[in-house]
């Protein structure tokens, strides 16, 4: 589905990704883990078009993504839920979700159905549908960000640190939801600092260190390895 090969990217004079290659197959949940500054967010941003790679390819369902504008990539069916939630503070919950439908063709009935699905998944959002974004709690904002990505019925979901800043109980709920979404058929590429959680939801994982993939294996295998722990805590 998604094939990333030899990706090199960075910001200005700083090169963050030196050589990243990974694959996400149909229906898979894949985790991308690693210490801070390893380049996990940059990888997602390079895929969704916010950062233009300097070398390498990103192929999605056969098309090359490198060089396309982010809005075009979104319309191809890739939903990137960015780090830090980034919901529109002045828009209501419903309006936020509606913006999510921009990536998807379809009529009003289609859109309302998509919104209804998200409300089913996150009843709290349904309760607050006319509240402005800034007034939601951290957990609700994360739900909204996720829902907003889902509303376009994406063919691939990119999640950037969904657990960031959330209380532990909410984190567990969030990941249960992510598991459910993936089980329903949407492939997910999950970037997380919280390695254990990510590896429990995903089937496979990649460990990123200083802009390179240093380990690639099934999630179970990775979770058992000592050097994963070392990469995080300095063995």
């Amino acid at each position, binding site marked *: 589905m998604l094939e990333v090969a030899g990706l090199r990217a960075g910001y200005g004079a700083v090169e963050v990704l030196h050589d990243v290659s990974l694959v996400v197959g149909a229906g898979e949940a894949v985790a991308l883990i690693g210490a801070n500054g390893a380049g996990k967010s940059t990888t997602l941003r390079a895929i969704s078009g916010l950062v233009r790679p300097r070398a390498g390819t990103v192929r999605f369902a056969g098309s090359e993504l490198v060089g396309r504008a982010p809005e075009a990539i979104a319309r191809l069916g890739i939903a990137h839920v960015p780090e830090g939630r980034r919901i529109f503070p002045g828009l209501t919950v419903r309006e936020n979700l509606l913006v999510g439908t921009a990536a998807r063709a379809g009529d009003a009935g289609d859109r309302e159905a998509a919104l209804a699905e998200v409300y089913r998944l996150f009843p709290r959002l349904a309760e607050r549908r006319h509240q402005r974004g800034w007034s939601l709690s951290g957990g609700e904002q994360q739900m909204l960000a996720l829902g907003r990505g889902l509303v376009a019925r994406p063919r691939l979901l990119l999640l950037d640190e969904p657990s960031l800043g959330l209380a532990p109980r909410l984190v*567990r709920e969030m990941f*249960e939801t992510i598991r459910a979404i993936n089980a329903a058929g949407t492939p997910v590429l999950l970037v997380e600092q*919280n390695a254990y959680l990510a590896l429990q939801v995903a089937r496979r994982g990649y460990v990123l260190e200083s802009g390179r993939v240093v380990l690639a294996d099934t999630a179970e295998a990775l979770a058992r390895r000592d050097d994963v722990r070392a990469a*995080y*805590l300095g063995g």
Partner: protein
Amino acid sequence: MRAGRLGAAVGLGAAAAVPLLGLDRYTMRLLDLGFVFVLLTAGFNFTLGYAGQLSLAHVGFFALGAYGVGLLTTGGVAGFWPALGLSVAGCVGAALVLGVPTVKLRTHYLALATLSFDEIVRLVLTSWKAVTRGTDGVLGIPPPSLLGWPVRGDGRWYYLLLAVTAALLWLAHRIGASRWGAAFAAMRQAEVAAEAMGVDTVRLKTLALALSAAYAAVAGGLYASLSTFISPEFFNIDLLVSTLAMLLIGGAGTVLGPVVGGLGLTFLPEWLRGVERYYMLAYGLGIVALITLFPAGIVGLAARLGRRPAVLAAPAARIVEPLPPAGSVAPAGVPLLAVRALTVRFGGLVAVDGLDFAVEAGRVHGLIGPNGAGKTTVINVLTGLYRPTAGSVVLGGRSLVGLAPHAVTRLGVARTFQTIRLFPAMSALANVMVAGQCHATTHLGHAVAGRAARREREALEAEARALLAWLGLDARADDPAGSLAHGQQRLLEIARALATRPRLLCLDEPAAGLTHGERAALVERLRALRERAVTLLVVEHNMPFIMQLCDTITVLDFGRKIAEGSPAAVRDDAAVVEAYLGSPLARA
């Protein structure tokens, strides 16, 4: 420097020879006016060019200077020179008053506030007919006299204006070349970083405003006397727009920029006069085109194309100790920094929650935690960038809460930034020297004349070079900081912070983006700092780095301390493991 001085002498000589060319009256008048506009633009250059502030009040001061001289001389109250002196003093006073509230305004608001000042001045001058004679204007303003001789006739006016303009431009040059010029440049390129390196940005901005007011007032007074008639309409938005456009096109921040700009302001309408009806149209289009193509202005472009950055004369070779001793060595084990019950709230978000920790003198103390744990917030509070909601921060017995960042730096706390904030257009050496200024003793008067400033600069430079050499950057000392490789930039930030002679050095992710070899070298250098009585507080994500370097580590999560102790103890602490790696999901 030699080339610059020669160029200036040639220019001055050429300018002095102009009246001998036998030009007609009209052109001479234009040239005289040109000097006035060069002065006005040079004043504006202090606020926009040097300080980088969109402070547009110079037109108002221009008007006040003109009316001050005009009214005082026609009213028989004072002769030209005393009237000019009074006007300048008055305008500087007004600038200091205006400066108090405007210094904290951001770009848009600053521009609007100063624009309103100009409009209010103009409107008051128009409406207060009793004093200013309103739109009728002030007529018959007498010329100045030099040594008893009235300045009449083209020759005398020309030379008087040339002398005044040359003197004031020379002063502007001296200020720009002094350590204040470096401080201005630093503030312009990275205000927060400059403040953190000990630069008092409030004072600098006020200085720029006062200088711009003084120059504008002189220009105004001369203008009044030169044209013998002034009225409020002249000091309108068009004039403001013209000075803004001309300075930007000429090249803000340089010395010659105002000259090009001021002359352009005077002569452009003349040159375009042939195009008659379309000239203003061409003017407008020209502005848009020029600013799009040359954001740095004409002089800036020439500088980039032609000359190399001015290299300060190499000092006599002196063996300098890499790090001057940072004050007395505190006995090890005594807390240098004590943080109690620190709480920082941003609206509803609690970034730091009741944090207690202490950093012992002469140690290397690590501060770690997952993303969003509050580590950088703690450093920002320590260095005065944020004000805590509650709690205390005490350095060697002195509370740091409520102090401006530059004051905290002068008390001995320095820092580096998580995202590099160097002064990119300044050389590596200049970056370090700006920070070294925080212990300088010369004042602005020294910058104008005398040897003291030069001696001080040589000493600063020697110290800076030694610091750079100590961190292995001496080969790139004269290159612009923005052109250094990432690893070198991180080291440069450290060198810069060390130049402030800190007792406590806070490093925010110093190892980010460094290669393995660079990290090892950095660990070694930082350990050496400990021998120099510099205490370190290090925030980092790179675990091997932190474990190797630190004596004690405090671990934060959600703004609270969850563990503290030696590296080995912390690494095996269950709470720390959970914070970083997470814990197993409930089996569904």
